[in-house]
């Protein structure tokens, strides 16, 4: 059931999936050309944020355009919980695709550095925390209002990532170097899962209370 619902989300945005795959492939080399000092991490962060938020936003837009299609899905034996969880899975799949694409990028463009699991865990943490705010807002406030949150994330992400990965700010992340990869990985995964779980519980609660027209 969950797989069918995730597949549904990809089907309704199938026109944009190809574009986002190309964009997530091109963003890191473009960053390498523009800001070579932090191209790897910054390029990957931007690729992930753009891909996940743009595709999620397109899915929300389609569901906003066809509200009765969601009503029909809820009238079928699909639990509302599954419909909400499929959105989280949809994002996880896009994240996995971005990791794979960035891995290929690093093989083609050595200047991007090595794509290690530490970077993947940190970016995963950032993304899950952003999504953990976005989905409950979407289910509570609706597409129109949640769109503002999305706009803020998209507009702030280049500025934020540029700030975070500037050499003069690197000192602030020095503590990460003192931690072992395993610790970063475990902490990142635990915090991400906790944020996702709380977020999913809230989203499910909001969606189950909603009267569908």
């Amino acid at each position, binding site marked *: 059931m969950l797989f069918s619902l995730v597949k549904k989300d990809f089907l309704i945005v199938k026109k944009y999936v190809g574009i986002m795959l190309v964009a997530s492939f091109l963003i890191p080399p473009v960053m390498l050309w523009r800001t070579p000092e932090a191209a790897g991490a910054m390029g990957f962060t931007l690729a992930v944020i753009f891909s996940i938020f743009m595709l999620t936003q397109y899915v929300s837009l389609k569901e906003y355009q066809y509200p009765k299609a969601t*009503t029909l899905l809820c009238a079928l034996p699909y639990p509302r919980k599954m419909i909400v969880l499929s959105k989280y899975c949809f994002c996880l799949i896009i994240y996995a695709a971005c990791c794979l694409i960035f891995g290929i990028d690093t093989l083609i463009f050595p200047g991007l550095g090595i794509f290690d699991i530490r970077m993947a865990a940190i970016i995963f943490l950032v993304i899950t925390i952003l999504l953990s705010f976005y989905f409950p807002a979407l289910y509570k406030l609706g597409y129109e209002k949640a769109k503002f949150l999305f706009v803020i994330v998209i507009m702030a992400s280049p500025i934020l990532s540029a700030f975070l990965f500037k050499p003069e700010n690197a000192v602030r992340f020095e503590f990460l170097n003192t931690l072992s990869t395993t610790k970063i990985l475990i902490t990142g995964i635990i915090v991400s899962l906790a944020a996702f779980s709380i977020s999913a519980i809230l989203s499910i609660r909001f969606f189950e209370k909603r009267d569908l027209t």
Partner: protein
Amino acid sequence: MDPILEVSGLNKRYGDFALKDISFCLPEGCITGFVGINGAGKTTTLRSILGLTNKVSGSIKFFGTDMDGNENKVKDRMGIVLDEGCFYDELTLSEMKNVIAPAYKNWCEQDFTEYLERFSLNPKQKINTLSKGMRMKYALALALSHKAELLIMDEPTNGLDPLVRSQLLNILKDYMAKGGKGVFFSTHITSDLEKIADMLIMIDDGQIVFQEEKDQLLDSCRIIKGSTEKLNPDTRKYFLTIEENAFGFTGITKQTSDVVEHMQDVLIERPTIEDIMLANAERRKKNVV
């Protein structure tokens, strides 16, 4: 006949509108028409039954199984046809089917293919290229391809031409011919119900007005026409509603024998479902005013 669906004490509030203590049951083997004017509460009732809106109170049982706690099991045995715009227009018929089919345990691909062939629908066609009638047929193909025991339809004939409506009614007859099934469909186009319904339930202003077998209901009511001179405070009581003009009056009564006894030289005609529905709605409106 065993009840296929029992609704009792259903209450729901939507701003100024409320469903008030809705109770009815659908017998097995019957096509039940759910009638009422626009805004009477038909769609809200159907959506409450399907768990699309949160009811305040009440119970819904399907073949004796309570919906609460068994919603998905129960929905697995229902076919649903909602009003227009329930599909993602940019998907093909086959893609939309792939979204819907996995929800059902008893999905039958062969039945679906047969329905598409019968309705001359191409699975590779995009939904946005379908006419209104074809969309309805497609919705029916989806609703009938998983061995559903109860078909729930919300205004299925709305906006369809007479030919497509007639085809739809034939499909419902074929479906019912298999036995052990039920159809519950809301409409305000009562001429369709004249042809096909066994049972009628009327809702008005969020309250059930009547639940009766169609033939019994049509037999129990009569249209009376005559001169306004025949009307007096006593005879007026026999009527659900009376319309008066310069040529006389037209009224609907459930007390035909009293009318015949006390009002001579009047014309008696058989009413349609629409006549009865409107008479009840107008009477209730007058009582409220």
